């Protein structure tokens, strides 16, 4: 493995273009280095972003929360964006939250990605940049499959844009009280216009939006009754799998319960 440590975003992008698909960006290392420690080194080249300071920021501007790609989870914890703050707080122990980054969580496209799921409930956008171009897309469209995203080989995630007019709630179900990998996690958000977004982790090959339930709520409005109906739609819609962490039917039912619980809470506030 060859190590590269660019000092600017420009250098990082140049390296990525040169080295291509065999190069991986390294930020907090909470996924890449774990794999490496298990003897599964990804890629021939690692491009370390720890000295690319342009990506390490969190700022609120013009009704948007802008999260730099290497902003660590810990920095989101104290924010007023409930689902995002709680999702960030549930990524792992403090040591992991100080280290793991939002860009890494999103870029890995893990079906169990906590922060990714919370961001979906805000209907966040993602910004991608290559040496020649910058583009922005809906995060929901960015995730394609486990570990697969819409990113091009010469691109980097630069930022996530989060609308600030969203009230949100978060629930993570794991096998212990302390943070652990999620069995199911749910995030719900309601924006100023009343539009509801529902997102789930660990029930599909990627962090998932439950648009059928969202559409029902768009028509009928959010009330405790429709919250319950939304949970039922979740149970009818999602197709989780059984693995060593949980069974499909458990994930299906609890995802529904969680969504109902979160939406009920949001409908009452």
């Amino acid at each position, binding site marked *: 493995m060859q190590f590269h440590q660019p000092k600017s975003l420009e250098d990082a992008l140049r390296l990525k273009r040169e080295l291509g698909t065999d190069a991986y960006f390294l930020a907090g290392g909470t996924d890449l280095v*774990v794999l490496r420690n*298990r*003897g599964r080194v990804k890629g021939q080249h690692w491009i370390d972003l720890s000295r690319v300071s342009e990506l390490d920021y969190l700022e609120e501007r013009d009704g948007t929360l802008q999260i730099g790609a290497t902003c660590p989870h810990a920095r989101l914890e104290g924010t007023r964006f409930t689902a995002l703050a709680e999702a960030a707080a549930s990524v792992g*122990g403090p040591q992991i939250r100080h280290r793991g980054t939002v860009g890494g969580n999103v870029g890995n496209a893990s079906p169990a990605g906590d922060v990714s799921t919370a961001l979906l409930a805000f209907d966040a956008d993602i910004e991608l940049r290559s040496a020649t171009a910058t583009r922005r897309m809906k995060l929901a469209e960015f995730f394609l499959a486990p570990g697969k995203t819409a990113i091009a080989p010469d691109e980097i995630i630069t930022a996530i844009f989060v609308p600030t007019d969203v009230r949100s709630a978060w629930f993570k*179900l*794991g*096998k*212990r*009280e*302390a943070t*652990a*990998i999620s*069995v199911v996690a749910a995030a719900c958000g309601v924006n100023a216009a009343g539009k509801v977004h529902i997102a789930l982790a660990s029930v599909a090959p990627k962090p998932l939006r439950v648009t059928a339930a969202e559409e029902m709520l768009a028509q009928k409005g959010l009330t405790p009754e429709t919250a319950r109906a939304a949970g039922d739609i979740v149970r009818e819609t999602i197709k989780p799998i059984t693995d*060593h*962490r*949980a*069974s499909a039917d*458990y994930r299906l*039912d*609890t995802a529904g*319960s*969680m969504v109902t*619980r979160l939406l009920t809470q949001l409908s009452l506030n």
Partner: protein
Amino acid sequence: MTIQTPAASIQAPAALKPGEAHTAAPTKPASMGASVKRSDARPKVIGETRYGGDMWVPGMLWCSVVRAAHPHANIRGVDTSAAEQIEGVVGVYTGKDVPGTNMHGLIRRDQEVLATTKVRYMGDAVAVVVAKDRRTAEHAVGLVKVDYEVLPGIFSIDDALDPSKPPIHDHGNRMGGQKIRKGDALAALENDCDVIVEHTLETQSVDHAFLDVEAGMAALEDGVLVIHAAGQWVHEEARLVALALGLPLEKIRIIQPPTGGAFGGREDISIQIYLGLAVLKTGKPVGIAYTRHESMVARHKRHPLRIHYRLGAKRDGTIVAAKVEIFADEGAYASTGIAVLRKAASHATGPYRVPHIHVDAHGLYTNQNPTGAMRGFGACQLAIAYEAAIDKLAEAIGMDRVALRRKNLIGAGEMVTTTQRIPVVSIQECLDEAARRIGWDNRDYTVDPAKPWLKKGYGISTFCFGLGYGDGFPDASRAKVRLNDEGLVEVYSGGVEVGQGIHMMCAQVAAEELGVDPTSVQVFLADTGITPEAGSSSATRQTFFTGNAVRLAATELKKVLYDVALRILPVHPEDLAVADSFVYDREEPARRVTFLQLVAEAKSRNLPLEVKSHYQPNTVTAPTETGLSPRVFITYLFGAHACEVLVDTETGQVKPLRIVAVHDVGRAINPQLVEGQIEGGVVQGLGMALMEEVVMKDGQIMNPGFTDYILPTIVDTPPIEAVILEHLDPEGPFGAHGVGEPPLIGTPPAILGAIHDALGLQITRTPATPERVWRALMEAKKQPAKV
């Protein structure tokens, strides 16, 4: 391991100066019952302590192990040539390179050190690679080619019971069994019971998950093979190394480095033989360290048991009979499995008075990790089963759970499962204390009204635990206590320190007997070169066995000191006493000599100030066919736990809110350490009750790391009230008997009982994960409630 005295702080008292006179008797420093601070705490908090994986010497080679690629396969051949060609590889060794007998095993020598003909689980070792460093060795491991003929596997108790499945061992898939036949339970269940409750329980595979993964080093020193590796019984490990390497015992020295936990998980031999083999072959120092993954794949686990329990009683709650059938997944090799099975059987009815008992326990081989020793040793699974049955009985006859227990718990002089009569029984008091502290009579079930999905429950458990190996197995501890040239007491014991604090126990027992400051006592442990054999640090036995051995030696040493003192002091022998490193005249305390003076006197007369002791009480084997014996164990420990939990009925999550753990430890030699044992055992029990589970699929571990093998953290731990009761054990050192295992045993049944209380249904598979609790609720919804 040497526990060093904090250097400058300890000084033996000086001899009297001319003209100086003492009139008051010297004061005996506090020892017995004092929470003396651990002598090893300081080096541990500053990060100075070197565990097995922290030791290295210049020129040290590295050893890595090639593990099986299939859970059940014949080996056709092993091709090491590609690995040998890697630069930096010194040698690749297979079973045919093992110079002695290529076998090991604690009770039966039934596992090849390096498999030559067959692998029986994924952890079987096939070869070891020795190279210049870890990275080279690990790389070369992947290049060793083993030609396998894959065999169908046995992956469950049902597979093992199926006669059409292939045998794992030549003698088939049944490893052994144990029966208990007390009275006539079958007839009593048929004829004498008003109520019969049944309970089926399946328990899980649990990993010890001590944090200090197997690691160590070895080297030749003056022709002796010195192995620094953590086990639980260095002398037995030396015998196993000698057998495998064909060396005489005096050519092997095993030294236990500071050790990061054990919990039974170091009882089976791990790295010791590989290290010894590598050193013998290369002549160089060699190091080794497993990864967590390798540790989980290679090492033994707690027995998964399937238990069918039938409990019969009179309408008033008087228990009449129990019929218990136990099937144990023993994994691929014997390990200590048969002993665990016997312990399970002998604890089948816990601390209850049960006139008729019928137990059949069956041990079955599977192509999964061998199952052996782990804290609780079969007794903890049975405690879950009998407590669940008692709770069910309480429900069936509409009796309070505490009252029902109180009615059926044994009293002094009554029998446990094996017909052994127990002279000192404090179980009623333990139960009452646990119930009082949890507020049993005023249980509060209110929950946040905004969260109607929450339910509260309370659980209570009582249990007993037979201490030591028992069952007629020779069980001894030897110790040596001496006064060194500085006049300080030294204790030598082969017992291993793995975190529990045996060194403090040794120091405090010796200090109490010899009247010295316990922090001045130097304790030397677990080094086959210098310490006498003490048996294993397991079975909750070291306080009792080594405590007695140390006390015996210290008592004798005191007599020797008196003899020497009498050569100096004109005193009546009966008036002599020790305190504060003086021997003095009780009648006239000014007449005194310091230990240092005694050392000088003894030297001048060539008298050794050193005593060796041997403590070996007997037990009586329980025959396999009846399981009955008047003295299966030396003594029994009693305790009771109570807990309060909150259950989320939609997600199945269980949150313990409070746990009370009451333990009669005989005598708490060091209360702070005893509390630490209780609290630590409770949390391991909590892990077993709610989250820990080695998930197997076709012989492979699906969660071989801490991301998916879920352990309790500080956030998962509710406030624990550790309550120490002291009913002096007539045979224990200063009345102590021990505390290691019971705190784990009491916890799962209390938590599961609380879930039962909250939901009105019982979880029949451990751990009670959110999904299992949810599933139980779903199934209960589907069918009308049973009466």
